[in-house]
């Protein structure tokens, strides 16, 4: 299946989703980016340079781990995990930013901007900018700045400027709007490093392309190391880049079922979730440059989203995923905040893995389905990131008193300035 073989007059469309709903000022910049992407795709040296960079800088290929203990515990299918958490900066975001970094060099631009929610994409972009020598500005909602201070700290140490965004809900979507406003002003020098397979064409294609190495590696690893293809593949879906990265390896293998897991938040009927494709509130709209399923009201105003994982807390979803839902190639499910915390606890105790809260959504669904499946069934889960970053959120969710005491003690130290003595 070639997703990117666009029909004449439908460039950038996946079925009825995608497109380029951009202000006229960006038209020529988008044309320039489309040409650069096309040339890069046609140039085998570019992909080789990318792979070499990821091997020497970001631990690729990442391994697939077999979860023997957890599989035995669940008593059904066998669980395997693609370890994107082992990337530099701790998530699959590294793949996309390093690829876009190489492209930025080709474009001859010297400044990069990015949006970030949880801060993972911001930190990844800041490392890339430091390594390539680009000026770097990261837009981040004020609310996210407040709840993700450790990532803000690292971005600033890496040399990036973090700009808090005070508009709207002060979260990821507002950071994207502000990054777009920067881009329409500074496009001659600046490349916008969008963090996921959303936004105007050619971003969904470009991000999906850079992430496709996850699936290419995984398919080969399952066959050579574990003797057969997986029966089902699970990935969490925020914007959709880690899911598309892994799924692309198996799109043509019809025996492999692909399962995308959205953030069910406090439940699909709670009004506090981020499920664009599995809830009633999701409908087709155009915002932030592209057409897809958005969480919006009847007037087309975007709704507030909620998830325990900041990385899945977003109004839209990749147009490529909307299309693959419509064709039936991908099944979409949701996991609630509570299910996610339970899955995380189980995976930590049984396997010593610490998945990011985002990735724990994929684990939660696989864990739910595994017991009823025959023992020879293989489930492959994408651990898109590591959970260290979630220490504050997880400690709160499980109400760890010792952690609370530690933070209170730390605060007292700061108040009395003991910390620096």
């Amino acid at each position, binding site marked *: 299946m070639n997703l990117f073989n666009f029909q004449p007059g439908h460039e950038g469309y996946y079925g009825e989703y995608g497109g380029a*709903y951009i202000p006229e000022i960006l*038209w020529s910049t988008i044309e320039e980016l489309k040409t650069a992407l096309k040339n890069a795709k046609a140039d085998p040296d570019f992909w080789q340079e990318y792979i070499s960079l990821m091997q020497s800088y970001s631990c690729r290929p990442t391994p697939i781990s077999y979860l023997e203990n957890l599989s035995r515990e669940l008593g059904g299918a066998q669980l395997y995990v693609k370890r994107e958490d082992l990337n530099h900066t701790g998530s699959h975001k590294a793949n996309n930013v390093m690829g876009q970094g190489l492209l930025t060099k080709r474009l001859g631009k010297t400044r990069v901007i990015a949006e970030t929610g949880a801060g993972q994409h911001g930190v990844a972009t800041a490392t890339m900018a430091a390594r390539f020598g680009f000026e770097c500005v990261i837009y981040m909602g004020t609310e996210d700045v407040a709840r993700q201070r450790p990532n803000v700290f690292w971005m600033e140490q890496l040399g990036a400027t973090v700009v808090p965004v005070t508009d709207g809900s002060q979260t990821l979507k507002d950071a994207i709007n502000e990054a777009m406003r920067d881009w329409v*002003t500074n*496009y001659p020098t600046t490349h916008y490093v969008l963090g996921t397979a959303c936004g105007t064409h050619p971003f969904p294609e470009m991000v999906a392309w850079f992430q496709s190495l996850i699936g290419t590696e995984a398919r080969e690893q399952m066959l050579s190391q574990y003797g057969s293809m997986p029966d089902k593949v699970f990935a969490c879906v925020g914007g959709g880049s880690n899911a598309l990265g892994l799924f692309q390896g198996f799109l043509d293998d019809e025996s492999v079922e692909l399962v995308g897991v959205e953030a069910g938040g406090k439940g699909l009927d709670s009004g506090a979730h981020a499920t664009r494709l599995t809830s009633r509130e999701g409908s087709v709209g155009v915002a*932030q440059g592209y057409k897809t399923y958005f969480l919006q009201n009847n*007037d*087309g105003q*975007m709704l507030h989203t909620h998830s325990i994982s900041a990385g899945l807390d977003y109004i839209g979803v990749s147009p490529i995923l909307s299309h693959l839902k419509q064709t039936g190639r991908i099944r979409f499910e949701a996991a609630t905040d509570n299910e996610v915390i339970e899955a995380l606890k189980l995976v930590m105790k049984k396997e010593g893995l610490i998945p990011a809260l985002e990735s724990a959504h994929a684990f939660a669904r696989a864990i739910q389905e595994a017991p009823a499946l025959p023992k020879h069934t293989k489930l492959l889960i994408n651990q898109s990131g590591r959970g260290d970053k979630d220490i504050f959120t997880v400690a709160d969710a499980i109400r760890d008193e010792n952690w609370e005491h530690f933070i209170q003690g730390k605060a007292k130290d700061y108040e009395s300035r003991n910390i620096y003595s």
Partner: protein
Amino acid sequence: MNLETYIRNRLKQKPIGTMTHVIAGYPSFDDNLTALRLMKKYNVDLVEIQMPFSEPTADGPVFVKANQEALKNGITVDHYFDFMKQASQEFDFPILMMGYYNTALKLGHKNFIQRLKNAGGAGFILPDLPLEEQNGLFDTAASNELSPILLVAPTTPDERLNAIGKAANGFVYVVARSGVTGDHTAFNKQFETYIQRCRNAIKLPLAVGFGVSQKKDIEYLTGKADIAIIGTALLRAWEYGKAEALEEFLDGLLGNG
């Protein structure tokens, strides 16, 4: 009378026309009406009424805040068209819907055009809907005698200016510079080359917006453009001192004194 003919007739009486702007429901519909009455008093030629949107990507901070506040006030599409109807009954200047494409998409093209027509609108400006994505909306508009107003930018190449000029109706919105609404524009030689490129490629009247905020900007544009578009500066004046400040500002901008 079609929009282009209206503009050409107005331009027989003055060297340059003006288009002004309000955001529906911000600070309130009553305030909008007061502002529109002042605009009428100063003889503006066209008015944009903006439908607030939750993701106003093309707008600068002043309008972003206004969009947000209007939505917080509970402004819906129904309120919007009711207000436009009221305004088009009271005023004789043509009124254009300004907003984002999602409003039209969610209503459905036919329904959007029908409601705009019933409300007395003359056309629409959707800055996030480029020519390639309009998907039949312009034909639906044309069969209802509504004008799609398209935007061009300094980065638009000549052949594309041409294509946009052909697809648009009424006039073409010439974005004066890069960036979002509300920042100052340095009108210079570069701008002159750009507006000349627009003139060569486009037969419709040209309206220049983004960063037009002072009398000297309008004087500069006279003879180069057909219409000066003033947006953010008006809202700034209102926020500074409500109707009184707006009137003072309009007087300085468009008054005879």
